[in-house]
């Protein structure tokens, strides 16, 4: 402790900026980890709370996928002895047309009985909630809004709210305002309640409900009730606790979480290198000090403890700052993630609370400190090994451990061989695959110092040719301090390889989606009930298709019904299409399966699966799957696999005829319209709009608009990847600044001599710049190479365990081309300040500097 105060503290005070830069790595690493996790948790928590709030006291919910429940199911459920109360529910995400408000979740219930399950008001009598319950029920335009929503939009009882419905925009009348609390906090107040029977009409539900919420009779346990009700209803119905609805979000966020975790790991790893670097340098720099301490009787263990304590404290301070930053960061991230999952419910979750989980904070702290300690271990050991006699001799450098390099190279070679072998021979074995990945990563890490040294040596001649003095000095400075150089280069390499891997995945996903849009999603026009294609709140009657076919210029109509169902406990997307017609139009060979699979599907012989779904479940053409339908379980043959991006959780393509029969649902989400040869899509669109506008809520999108919309959606998903790329690049730059700053301090005397013997300031500056550019160049070379390897593993991992998507390996040349100037420019910018500090200082001091 005494040593810490006497020795470390003055040093830290003298090198404030450097200390800051050193801990910055840990700060960032912990911040990214905690931030991402917290944001994730917060959004999930908010979403679960929303589900809870909406569910109220409902213990179980009965649904039939998204197909809707016939009204008689309600009476059957209400009659069951296990059920105390059961109420019908329709939920719809509806656009409000109010400025500054997005969608609102309309929760449609039967107000005569719903109060047994939901609190619409926590404080006092019903008058405060609904002005007149009878008027509320009598008028189908009645709406109850939350106090928050009313306040935001200046609404009072009797005000009207415009909403987009099946019958076009309609004005609803506020007939009640919910007091704050419980339910009203769902979606930050963007929730409205209306009558369920009115909702059937307004949202085109026919005589169905979306689900039935129920409370169990006293003494009936949740699981017993669930099983009993499920058994009475039969297959095709899901009886689940409300919380299980969160699963859908979970699965949406899974891909995202995977990326986030990978990034946290990388950030910390890079942080570790920065710390290692800084401490190695500190040890070199304080060699004299250590020598004196040793000469005065400090033991090796004491010195090691001193440096380990330093790194521990740095880690702790960095982690604490990281936690704070992470929580801040999570607010922004939460906002972003909310946007991402908005598509699931149709409404953005307003995450007001940040869920700071104690275990997460503890984990972040532990990780930060552990990383820092691990990074400080080798420098501490080296510090302990300092020879006091040599250290006290001025002007002499102690060269440390040359044998270490040989051992490291040998280990790298062995690991590299192992990973290659595993890659070649262990394709099917997950454990071996990951072992291979770890081997490869370790081998690359171990070999990177050696390779970076080679590369630097190779760079010396061209640098010298460029500028004889500055070039040689810059290269030599890097060659002379391999540890310092390689740590930065490795950090840079890791960052860049991450960038390349993510860029590669992003590119591959983007290409795949665009390819699918081009070859499969190729109708000229899309007629939808909402402005985008994923919301399934509104549906068309089948008959509208016949009317559309009569429109001049229309050659063919495909009726599509997308419908989320549950397969083996997880949500997937059922897409009912007119298979024959689709087969004729699709211009993309199947991933698996015979050429006539669409015709066979049209004959009702089976279904076609998206390849990602099939891969994750281990399904192949020729196999079969069992689907729970409202008319009982159906085992159907798998005819083939195709690429389909309709939904990332997986897609089952079924012929419409089978769907209508089994699910007893003949509604349509989207009409795909092919126009006749020679007809102009724009004109056909105009005719459709003119003919149906007013009578139906209907949007006509051109192929180009849909493609643009999908591209936009894809970009939204990708933007997170890009944000993380930015973090990686930032960390890399941090590493360069750190190395250079330290390198300048290290070489103050050298740079002083340079000026004493006549070097101009410009020459000194250029030396520092060239050093930075050399680091950048070596880092780039290694980073792009390692990135190419990492990309392969990441694609493979994603395919195996995350998304199931088989993405082609394409090296992201565009990203790489962008990185070269970016990193070189960053290196240059990073060098500006160190270069200035090198020429600004006192020459006299520099020459005496030891």
């Amino acid at each position: 402790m005494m040593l810490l105060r006497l020795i470390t503290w003055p040093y830290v005070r003298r090198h404030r900026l450097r200390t800051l830069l050193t801990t910055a790595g840990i700060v960032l690493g912990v911040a990214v980890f905690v931030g991402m996790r917290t944001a994730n948790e917060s959004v999930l928590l908010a979403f679960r709370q929303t589900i809870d709030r909406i569910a109220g006291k409902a213990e179980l919910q009965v649904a039939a996928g998204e197909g809707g429940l016939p009204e008689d199911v309600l009476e059957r459920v209400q009659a069951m002895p296990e059920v105390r109360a059961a109420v019908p529910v329709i939920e719809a995400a509806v656009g409000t047309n109010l400025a500054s408000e997005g969608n609102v979740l309309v929760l449609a219930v039967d107000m005569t009985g719903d109060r047994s399950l939901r609190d619409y008001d926590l404080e006092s009598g019903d008058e405060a909630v609904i002005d007149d319950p009878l008027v509320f029920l009598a008028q189908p335009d009645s709406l109850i809004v939350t106090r928050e929503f009313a306040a935001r939009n200046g609404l009072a009882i009797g005000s009207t709210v415009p909403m987009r419905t099946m019958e076009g925009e309609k004005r609803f009348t506020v007939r009640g305002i919910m007091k704050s609390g419980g339910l009203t906090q769902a979606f930050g107040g963007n929730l409205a309640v209306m009558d369920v029977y009115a909702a059937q009409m307004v949202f085109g539900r026919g005589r169905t409900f979306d689900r039935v919420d129920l409370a169990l009779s006293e003494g009936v346990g949740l699981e017993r009730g669930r099983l009993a009700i499920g058994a009475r209803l039969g297959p095709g119905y899901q009886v689940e606790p409300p919380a299980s609805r969160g699963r859908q979000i979970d699965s949406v966020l899974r891909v995202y979480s995977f990326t986030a975790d990978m990034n946290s790991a990388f950030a910390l790893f890079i942080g570790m290198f920065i710390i290692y670097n800084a401490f190695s340098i500190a040890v070199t720099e304080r060699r004299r000090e250590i020598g004196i301490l040793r000469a005065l009787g400090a033991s090796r263990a004491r010195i090691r403890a001193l440096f380990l304590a330093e790194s521990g404290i740095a880690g702790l301070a960095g982690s604490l700052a990281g936690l704070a930053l992470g929580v801040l960061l999570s607010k922004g991230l939460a906002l972003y993630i909310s946007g991402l999952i908005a598509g699931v419910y149709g409404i953005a979750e307003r995450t007001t609370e940040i869920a700071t989980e104690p275990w997460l904070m503890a984990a972040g702290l532990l990780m930060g400190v552990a990383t820092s300690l691990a990074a400080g271990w080798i420098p501490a050991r080296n510090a302990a090994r300092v020879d006091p006699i040599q250290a006290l001799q001025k002007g002499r450098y102690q060269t440390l451990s040359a044998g270490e390099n040989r051992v490291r190279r040998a280990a790298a070679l062995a690991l590299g061989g192992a990973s290659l072998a595993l890659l070649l021979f262990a394709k099917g074995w997950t454990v071996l695959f990951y072992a291979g990945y770890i081997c490869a990563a370790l081998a690359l890490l171990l070999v990177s110092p050696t390779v970076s040294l080679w590369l630097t040596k190779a760079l010396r001649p061209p640098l010298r040719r460029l500028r004889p003095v500055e070039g040689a000095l810059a290269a030599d400075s890097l060659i002379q301090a391999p540890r310092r150089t390689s740590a930065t280069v490795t950090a840079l390499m890791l960052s860049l390889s991450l960038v390349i891997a993510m860029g590669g995945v992003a590119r591959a996903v983007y290409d795949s989606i665009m390819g699918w849009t081009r070859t499969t999603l190729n109708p000229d026009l899309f007629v939808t009930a909402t402005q985008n294609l994923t919301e399934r709140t509104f549906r068309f009657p089948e008959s509208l298709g016949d009317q559309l076919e009569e429109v001049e210029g229309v050659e063919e109509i495909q009726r599509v019904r997308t419908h989320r169902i549950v397969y083996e406990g997880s949500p997937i997307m059922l897409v009912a299409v007119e298979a024959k017609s689709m087969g004729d139009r699709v211009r993309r060979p199947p991933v698996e399966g015979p050429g006539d699979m669409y015709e066979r599907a049209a004959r009702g012989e089976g279904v076609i699966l998206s390849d990602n779904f099939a891969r994750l479940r281990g399904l192949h053409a020729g196999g079969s799957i069992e689907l729970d339908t409202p008319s009982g379980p159906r085992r159907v043959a798998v005819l083939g696999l195709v690429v389909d991006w309709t939904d990332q959780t997986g897609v089952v393509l079924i012929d419409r005829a089978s769907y209508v029969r089994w699910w007893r649902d003949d509604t349509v989400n989207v009409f795909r319209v092919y126009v006749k040869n020679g007809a102009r899509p724009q004109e056909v669109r105009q005719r459709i709009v003119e003919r149906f506008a007013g009578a139906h809520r209907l949007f006509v999108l051109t192929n180009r608009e849909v493609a643009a919309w999908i591209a936009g959606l894809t970009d939204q998903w990708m933007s997170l990847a890009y944000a993380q790329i930015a973090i990686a690049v930032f960390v890399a730059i941090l590493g360069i600044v750190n190395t250079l700053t330290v390198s300048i301090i290290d070489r103050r005397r050298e740079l002083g001599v340079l000026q004493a013997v006549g070097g101009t300031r410009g020459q000194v500056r250029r030396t520092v710049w060239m050093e930075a550019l050399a680091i950048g160049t070596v880092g780039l070379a290694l980073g792009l190479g390692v990135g190419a390897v990492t990309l392969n593993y990441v694609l493979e991992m994603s395919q195996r365990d995350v998304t199931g998507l088989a993405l082609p390996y394409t090296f992201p040349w565009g990203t790489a081309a962008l990185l070269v100037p970016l990193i070189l420019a960053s290196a240059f910018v990073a060098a500006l300040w160190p270069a200035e500090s090198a020429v600004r200082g006192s020459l006299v001091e520099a020459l005496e500097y030891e």
Partner: protein
Amino acid sequence: MTRRIRVLSVMLPLALGLVQPRAAAAQSAREVMEESQKRGQAASQHYEGLLQVVDARGKISDKRWIFDRLGSHGRSRAVLTFMEPPEVRGVALLVVNHPDRASDQWMWTPAIQRERRIALQDRSTRFFGTDFSFEDLEERDTEQYDFRAIADEAIDGAACWKIEAKPRTGKSSQYTLSYVWVRKDNYAFQLVENYARGALARRLRYSRIENVQGIWAGRVLEMTDVRRNSRTVLTLDKLQYNLPMKEERFTLQALRRQ
């Protein structure tokens, strides 16, 4: 034949009105209740009701409905059609009473051309913002209750029997206990107090007790929700008994044609 009593019922005074005063010296509590029910017998009933809801803050809202009822109690059917305010005109409630089980109730909403069933589980909730509950619209069998004479008391100057009514099976009603004050002179109800879990929940007070076509009944009913501190006053106008009515009017199909 099962004898029925519409204890605690809105329709009760209307159906029970036709009760002649009789010397009842030492009747048991059950005999009093059965006599009261007998005197209210009528083949059909019609009235126009004015419903005034006074909330805790003293705000009054008015509604009007037309009430028609056909058939002997226990088997009767009733249709209640709202006429005012204009926003609710045409909204109707169909009640089909069954001798052996709880009634079926449907609400008809003309604006969406839809009926909705009022589920059994919801009968304890308030009847469209009034202080009556859906259950209070039902007819209940005297056999479902145990009666006990408590005291002789005068209410509003009229001598009454105070009788305790307890449902025999615990869960058939939201109320666990009721007190009924039956007038000694004409067997009409004067006051009903309903208790839920030991606390007074609703109080129904009858006034302007008049004889119409030989049936004695209160023409003004005031239901107080003690917990919410609000009350609803129902005034019966144009009360008539034994009008000719068609059975078909009291069906869902008839509501849809309306």
